[in-house]
């Protein structure tokens, strides 16, 4: 092990010029920040899109002059057309799921923190690491380009169901060049994620420092490691699906297009023998593990932060690791619960339903253990801690609504209503973002050497926490009434009485979106003007807190830390302080 470390340490030296230091950097810390800022740029665009959608939903005639400059056809005179609404929705979903939820928690924080937490100088394959970021970045640029093609961005949703997406522009606006760009972007993203996943797995398995047994890994490392395995297995499938879809569009194949389609009075005679359901299977074989790819790192960060600020060991470390493994494993067997009404065999629907209920068990274990961690603790309400607590609350709320949708007999009514939108936004969207906020406030001192402003952080937390409940809880009520999702306007009489509730949600959304400016200001202001951070401002135990803030280029200044303890030794009876660092020589009583 020691020789290997030496090798890695000499694999590259601290770069001296700007380009190799900040742009084409091999340093995991710079790459982690690059991913973080890529996610930040994506989330800003994503939130602007959601504000536009919420505006259009309640005030369909509102004029937004700059929108017509962006897309003269999509928003003639600044008024959004129904198809442009769908395009914005598609771009919102794609940006958020891929470039935010998959990027920041895993590739961003994981890249920055994981090598340090296991006592390594860098990731196992720094060049691959750089390549994975730039591939992902290229995917982002290609996706953004879809805003500017004459036909407009794709409108098929982030799920891109075939054959709508497989037959080209005859299917409607956005299904020409926009959809091509979407597929290319997703394929690039898959490649980037696959390279990243390989790197994470190799790094966790091979670059742990002396004494860092798997059973001493911080839970966030476990989360990143398991997520990487999920990403490796699922993005490979999505990549294949994207290639097949592209071939259907431009290569004359028929993987997803059956014979005899008549679109807008025209017979598509160049296709036969394809199966639209195949796309759904391939997509959700990726799509469901993807949900856990988004949320597992948040779970890891939350566990880490909850234990640190409760000043108490994590409750049930092994159960937590086991639960994450179970979630990862079962996560590959539940994709069919997205397809109860798709025309798939009702027998498999039943089987998928049982597996889905089973995956609720490890999720429940996690929640119980978080509560167990808080129990008997001495909670310090830092902003990071507030967001971690918020994560638990949101995860419970969003997770429970999943129990409705997991049952085909209930899903048959709630499927494709706002109930689903509320469910996944709470559990994989907002909860995961709370994980990111917790991570940001927690690791910012290490990443930038300065503290974030706690007062601004708390104001931001309160508005966001109450705000997201005001936006997403009512979606469940809407779903119960049968309000269908992905509608740009409520034409039918049935939905008209629901408009006041939609207005309430829209206003909550505008306030919540506005509150994110506080966060952005806090982030950039603190980067330059924040109070200087000490080595270990949170009195935490993991290895990143044993080195200066920000860390030197090779993290441990040429030394190899030796680990003696698990990551959550807080409140140890008889210890000098209320925490024992992982590399401390102090002894811990056996438990």
């Amino acid at each position: 092990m020691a020789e290997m470390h030496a090798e890695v340490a000499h694999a590259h030296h601290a770069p001296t010029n700007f380009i190799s230091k900040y742009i084409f950097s091999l340093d995991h810390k710079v790459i982690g920040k690059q991913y973080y800022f890529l996610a930040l740029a994506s989330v800003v665009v994503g939130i602007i899109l959601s504000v536009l959608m919420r505006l259009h939903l309640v005030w369909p005639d509102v004029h937004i002059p700059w929108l017509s400059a962006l897309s003269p056809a999509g928003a003639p005179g600044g008024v959004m057309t129904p198809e442009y609404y769908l395009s914005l929705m598609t771009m919102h979903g794609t940006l958020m799921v891929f470039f935010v939820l998959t990027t920041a928690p895993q590739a961003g924080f994981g890249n920055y923190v994981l090598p340090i937490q296991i006592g390594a100088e860098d990731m196992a394959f720094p060049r691959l690491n750089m390549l994975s970021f730039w591939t992902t970045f290229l995917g982002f640029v290609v996706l953004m380009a879809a805003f500017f093609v004459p036909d407009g961005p794709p409108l098929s949703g982030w799920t891109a169901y075939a054959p709508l997406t497989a037959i080209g522009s005859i299917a409607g606006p956005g299904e020409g060049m926009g959809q091509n760009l979407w597929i290319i972007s997703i394929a690039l993203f898959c490649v980037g994620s696959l390279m990243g996943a390989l790197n994470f797995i190799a790094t966790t398995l091979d670059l742990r420092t002396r004494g860092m047994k798997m059973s001493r890994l911080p839970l966030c490392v476990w989360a990143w490691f398991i997520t990487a395995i999920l990403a490796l297995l699922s993005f490979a499938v999505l990549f294949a699906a994207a290639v097949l879809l592209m071939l259907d569009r431009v290569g004359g194949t028929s993987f997803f297009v059956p014979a005899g389609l008549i679109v807008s009075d025209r017979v598509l005679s160049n296709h036969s023998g394809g199966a639209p359901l195949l796309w759904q299977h391939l997509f959700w074989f990726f799509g469901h593990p993807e949900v856990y790819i988004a949320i597992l790192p948040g779970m890891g960060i939350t566990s880490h932060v909850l234990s640190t600020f409760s000043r108490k060991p994590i409750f049930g470390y092994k159960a937590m690791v086991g639960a994450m493994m179970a979630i990862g494993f079962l996560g590959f067997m539940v994709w069919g619960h997205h397809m109860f009404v798709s025309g798939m065999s009702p027998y498999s629907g039943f089987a998928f339903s049982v597996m889905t209920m089973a995956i609720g068990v490890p999720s429940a274990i996690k929640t119980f253990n978080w509560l167990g961690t808080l129990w008997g603790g001495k909670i310090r309400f830092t902003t990071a801690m507030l967001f971690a607590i918020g994560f638990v609350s949101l995860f419970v709320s969003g997770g429970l609504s999943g129990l409705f949708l997991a049952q085909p007999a209930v899903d048959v009514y709630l499927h494709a209503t706002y109930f689903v939108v509320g469910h996944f936004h709470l559990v994989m969207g907002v909860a995961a973002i709370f994980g990111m906020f917790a991570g940001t406030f927690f690791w910012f001192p290490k990443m930038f050497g300065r503290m974030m402003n706690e007062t601004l952080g708390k104001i931001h937390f309160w508005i966001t926490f109450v705000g997201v409940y005001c936006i997403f809880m009512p979606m469940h009520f809407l779903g119960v009434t049968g309000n269908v999702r992905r509608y740009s306007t409520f034409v039918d009489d049935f939905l008209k009485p629901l408009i006041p509730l939609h207005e309430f949600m829209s206003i909550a959304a505008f306030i919540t979106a506005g509150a994110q400016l506080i966060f952005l200001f806090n982030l950039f202001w603190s980067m330059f003007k924040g109070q200087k951070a000490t080595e270990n401002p949170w009195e935490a135990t993991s290895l990143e807190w044993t080195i200066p803030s920000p860390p030197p280029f090779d993290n441990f200044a040429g030394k190899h830390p030796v680990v003696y303890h698990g990551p959550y030794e807080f409140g140890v009876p008889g210890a000098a302080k209320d925490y024992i660092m992982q590399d401390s020589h102090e002894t811990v009583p056996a438990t």
Partner: protein
Amino acid sequence: MTILVAALFLAGCSKKESTETSSEESSSMPAAAATPIDQSTVGEVTGKIMFQGTKPKLAVIHMDQDPVCVSKHSEPVHVEDGEVNDDGTLPNVFVYVKEGAEKYTFATPTDAVTLDQNGCMYKPHVVGLMAGQTLHIVSSDATTHNIHPLPKDNREWNESQPPGAAPLDKVFARPEVMIPVKCNQHPWMRSYIGVVNNPFYFVTGADGTYTLKGLPPGDYTIEAWTAIGGPSGQTQDQKVTVSPKGTASLDFTFKS
């Protein structure tokens, strides 16, 4: 930094887009080196479009899915393709000069041709206009339509027009007879657009007659198109000679 790069990239993209549009427009300009038309010698072609056979039974259009459409009609509405006038002539036939007018050039008319969507039907059912001329699409309905032309030689587009939205002004760059137009939200809605390179075209009405005026003397191929006889309709070509200030007579007869 990322934003900067993205912005640069995007700026490049939008520029490309604008040049594309302009090149498409310029290609619609008539070719130069034209033979001028002597207005003092022009003649005309006139005639009648007849239908032979049993009148097709016209199905009733069921608009049940959109109460806005239903409310606009007190009588049952029948499909328009296959309509025959009481005297056995055909309405909605597009007659135009197919060959013979190439040596002349014609300024693209600056006035627009209007296509209205009223009662979830296109008014008129058959439209003629010149390549490069503006098609002004308006909606008199309190419901959303989408206008989806299905051309072979022109660029396909498909845009929604919600109630109260601004009219759409569109141009077809290349001549094409006929371009079907569809509204996917009211699938029965169909209009046909004849795009030609000269001003010599006519759409027959309730009397089934046509007149092509202002033709310089010479030999021409006249084509007539009708929707009767299948989804893409049928056409007939006939040759005719126009003498100075003369009136040539040319009738067409279609079977179902």
